[in-house]
């Protein structure tokens, strides 16, 4: 009914998924941050220490539900476990399980340095403004239209000449006279118990007369006033008065 008072604002429901995207742009970024903070040597990474810190931070920031961070956490724990495995002294086959991560961290650090460079370049570029700030159009805008009145009229005439004769649909009033036919048939039914098609429509009926009589016959048959029969295919239709008993 009333708006919530400013002292008692309606808080949006807290969702469980909070990712502080502003702070770190990814797990590598977070790792680099931790390494820098502890002044560790990237190439000789203290995995146990960094893994614990990484887990602590993502828990604290609510990043522990983001797949990328979880994957990194798992990777760190695996490397930590691999480092704990005993190995023979002077084993040349042994490969430092950290090397892949170190390579990626160095690579990422390089990208971060480039980001700084790009950011500076963009900031410096933004100190200079171009003419207007409309997006560049891929094509030139069309030139303004120049036209003489006579040209326009001639063009209009050409267009009009191309239009075919209009095909008008002629609307005629509906000439069917179903009611008249019904009255005629009912009169016949009173006079005769049975009569033929030609008694209804006459000797030389028009199409309209035939249609009117036919519809009327069907309607009366439906109502149970008469019965239609045709002794053979294409034989004249015989119309017989329906007895009142059956009609009921």
């Amino acid at each position, binding site marked *: 009914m009333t708006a919530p008072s400013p002292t008692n604002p309606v808080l949006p429901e807290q969702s469980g998924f909070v990712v502080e995207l502003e702070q770190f742009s990814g797990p590598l970024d977070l790792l680099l941050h931790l390494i820098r903070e502890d002044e560790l040597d990237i190439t000789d990474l203290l995995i146990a220490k960094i893994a614990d810190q990484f887990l602590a931070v993502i828990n604290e920031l609510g990043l522990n539900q983001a797949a990328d961070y979880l994957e990194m956490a798992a990777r760190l724990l695996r490397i930590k476990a691999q480092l704990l495995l005993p190995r023979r002294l002077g084993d040349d086959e042994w490969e430092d399980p950290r090397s892949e991560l170190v390579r990626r961290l*160095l690579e*990422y650090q390089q990208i971060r340095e480039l980001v700084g460079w790009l950011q500076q370049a963009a900031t410096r570029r933004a100190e*200079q403004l171009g003419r207007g700030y409309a997006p560049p159009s891929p094509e030139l805008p069309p030139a303004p239209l120049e036209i003489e009145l006579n040209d326009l009229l001639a063009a209009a005439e050409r267009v009009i000449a191309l239009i075919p004769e209009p095909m008008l649909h002629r609307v005629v009033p509906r000439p069917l006279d179903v009611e008249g036919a019904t009255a005629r048939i009912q009169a016949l039914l009173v006079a005769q118990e049975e009569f033929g098609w030609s008694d209804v429509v006459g000797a030389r009926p028009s199409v309209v007369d035939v249609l009117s009589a036919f519809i009327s016959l069907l309607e009366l048959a439906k109502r149970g006033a008469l019965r239609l029969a045709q002794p053979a295919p294409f034989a004249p239709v015989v119309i017989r008065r329906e007895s009142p008993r059956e009609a009921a």
Partner: protein
Amino acid sequence: MSPLAKLLEAALFAASRPLTLEELATLGPEAAGEGEGEEGGEAEAETRAALAELRGAWAGEDHGVELVEIAGGWQFLTRREYAEPIERAQFALRPRRLSPAALETLAIVAYRQPVGRLEVDEIRGVDSEAVLDKLVERGLIEIVSRGEGLGRPLLYGTTPQFLEILGLKGLDQLPRLDELSVALRPPAPAEPE
């Protein structure tokens, strides 16, 4: 100023984007007409000379704008010292700043192009599809080809627009990797798993 320099000045004023040397060379009278058999290089050389003249005419303390070589072309831009008052008066807007994620992705595309999404993901350690899409939308990168590998992945490269927002003449103005404090070997060939 020579007639050609004045013509270039008018064209650069009319266009609100950088015009390339090639585009500008089509303006000259010899390019428009009889000089069919003539070397196109001659028109470009003349244009280049006229551009130098024009830049000289606008250089110095007497003007509020200058002619700048940018993104493979030429454009009149306001002098640095005037950006702030112009923006304060809200006559023009500076372009929106790019997020760290967008800049990371741009850096990777710029140095590894043509590059596919998987490689970008790998280097950044996060899924970069949305960022790549947004950069394509802003016209800073574009799909340049398809890779060989599984599913023929789309490969991205930078656009002239990328150079423009950084104020670079060309990609060769980006810092060389060996100039960075973190030296890194060039990307190793794909290791067999």
